[in-house]
């Protein structure tokens, strides 16, 4: 055993130790009481794994510069970003992780390779890492509302086509490695197709389906790291990457279930194509209400359920919502928040916003807990949510969203719907809730409406 061997076995032993820390870390991250410690533990695992790798690096100067830039940029973004921009930040960081594995596999293509299996691994890693990167960047653009390209536009169709071509090319080139060694040109085409394909993968997916895509891209970044681990024969990459792949997959499944749709339907079909013939135009009258009347009803309510949606995030209304909640409580009203898993643009979006506004997490309730006691709720206040409270999902078998678990706000004694206008939700489905006997529409900007209620309470 020479010196190099010794170092390498030492590193591998430390990697195993670090893997154990990652496993405990991610387990603790999944429970409320231990989440902070779990994140700390996994950061410690990362520090140990990186430190032990640094023992025998070849080019210390470049690496120190690289890590310093990364530390600076990453920390600046993480500490400066507003909590409301969290969804796009997560997408961005996720994309960078994917990009790193893309570069790793690219670099390995240029090193000495002795079997065709390695070529296949390189191609898969390049592909998953590259799609994660360009897909996440598109997700970033969509979430930060910088990128607005319609699903039906010619650009979207073009990129979607490229995505399918890139998939075919991947399988084709992987199969060919048995026959001949991929040339540089052949590989370069794969690199370009991969990056363009990732754009085409995310571009056609609409805003309301973003929670699913983000979770899936999260999973991909982990799988890419695990494949890079296979390529480099590195056990800690495989374990940590697989854990991320698994956690992303779980979130993806939770999100898809919350919409009662299959993952395939979300990614490749979308609502528009799946909506059936049923176009039952809702008849009846919408009953508007003004702030002072709404105040009188709220003042006499014993229990209030707030149901936030993406509209609350857009209007930045979470702070006034918390203020209203506190005023109601000091008035003797019981206040709960009904959180639907896919409300917003990423998993847990509403939870983060309300936490930022200092709403304690134990007053947040999930649909299956709040629905059975809905008839005891005096007022359900729907703030910028639409599809997640659409009764068609339970009442109308022909509706595109039929079967989706919803928060049954319509069963509350009175429903306030805060909304800008009468436009339909992301799914493009009319919402019969707005026409129900017990529903009152409070039109206008959510922040202004709630702010109005707050000042009525203070008078």
């Amino acid at each position, binding site marked *: 055993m020479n010196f190099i061997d010794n170092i390498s076995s030492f590193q591998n032993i430390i990697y195993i130790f670090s893997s154990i820390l*990652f496993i405990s870390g991610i387990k603790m991250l999944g*429970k*409320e009481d231990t*989440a902070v410690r*779990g*994140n700390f533990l*996994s950061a410690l695992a*990362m520090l140990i794994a*990186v430190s032990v*790798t640094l023992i025998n690096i*070849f080019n210390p100067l*470049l690496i120190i510069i*690289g*890590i310093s*830039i*990364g530390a600076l*940029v*990453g*920390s600046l*973004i*993480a*500490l400066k970003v507003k*909590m409301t921009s*969290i969804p796009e*930040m*997560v997408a961005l*960081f*996720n994309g*960078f*992780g994917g990009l*790193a*594995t893309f*570069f790793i596999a690219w*670099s390995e293509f*240029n*090193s000495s390779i002795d079997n065709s299996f390695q070529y296949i691994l390189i191609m898969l890693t390049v592909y998953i890492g590259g799609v994660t990167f360009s897909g996440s960047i598109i997700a970033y653009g969509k979430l930060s509302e910088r990128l607005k390209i319609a699903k039906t536009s010619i650009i979207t169709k073009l990129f979607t086509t490229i995505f399918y071509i890139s998939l075919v090319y991947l399988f084709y080139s992987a199969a060919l490695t048995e026959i001949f060694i991929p040339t540089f040109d052949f590989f370069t085409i794969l690199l370009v197709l991969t990056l363009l394909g990732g754009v085409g993968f995310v571009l056609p997916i609409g805003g309301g389906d973003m929670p699913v895509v983000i979770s899936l891209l*999260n999973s991909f*970044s982990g799988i*890419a790291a695990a494949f890079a681990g*296979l390529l480099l024969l*590195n*056990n800690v*990459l*495989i374990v940590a*990457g697989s854990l*991320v792949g698994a*956690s*992303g997959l779980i*979130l993806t499944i939770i999100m898809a279930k919350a919409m009662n749709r299959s993952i395939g339907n979300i990614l490749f079909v979308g609502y528009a194509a799946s909506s059936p013939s049923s176009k039952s135009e809702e008849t009846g009258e919408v009953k508007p209400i003004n702030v002072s009347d709404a105040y009188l009803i709220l003042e006499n309510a014993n229990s209030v359920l707030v149901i936030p949606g993406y509209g609350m995030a857009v209007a930045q209304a979470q702070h006034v919502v918390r203020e209203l909640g506190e005023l109601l409580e000091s008035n003797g009203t019981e206040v709960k928040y009904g959180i639907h*898993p896919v409300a917003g643009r*990423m*998993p*847990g979006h509403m*939870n983060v916003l309300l*936490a*930022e506004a*200092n709403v*304690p997490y134990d007053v*947040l309730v*999930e649909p299956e807990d709040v629905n059975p006691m809905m008839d005891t709720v005096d007022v359900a206040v729907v703030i910028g949510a639409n599809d997640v409270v659409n009764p068609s999902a339970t009442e109308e078998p022909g509706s595109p969203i039929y079967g989706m678990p919803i928060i049954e706000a319509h069963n509350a004694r009175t429903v306030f719907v805060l909304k800008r206008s009468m436009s339909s939700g992301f799914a493009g489905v009319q919402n019969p809730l707005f026409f129900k006997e017990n529903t009152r529409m409070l039109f206008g900007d959510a922040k202004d409406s709630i702010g109005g209620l707050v000042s009525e309470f203070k008078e």
Partner: protein
Amino acid sequence: METYILLGFVLILSIYLGLELISKVPSTLHTPLMSGANAISGIALVGALSLGSDTQLQEILAFLAVTFASINVFGGYLVTNRMLRMFKKK
């Protein structure tokens, strides 16, 4: 090939372990879990550090991989921590 089979085994077991460990995550933690897991995927940094640098292209690729993976690691952990600190009980 033996090594790949062994490591492939590690991969499958780790995914299975991950699925078991996180299957019952409360919705409050959906975002922090995603963001925390995202930081873990920055483990690519370890891979990036062990890349060869025989040619100039490889040197550039290794540098870029290290830089972007570091952004992922530092940004991911810090933002997760910031988020988790906001969650409070009554």
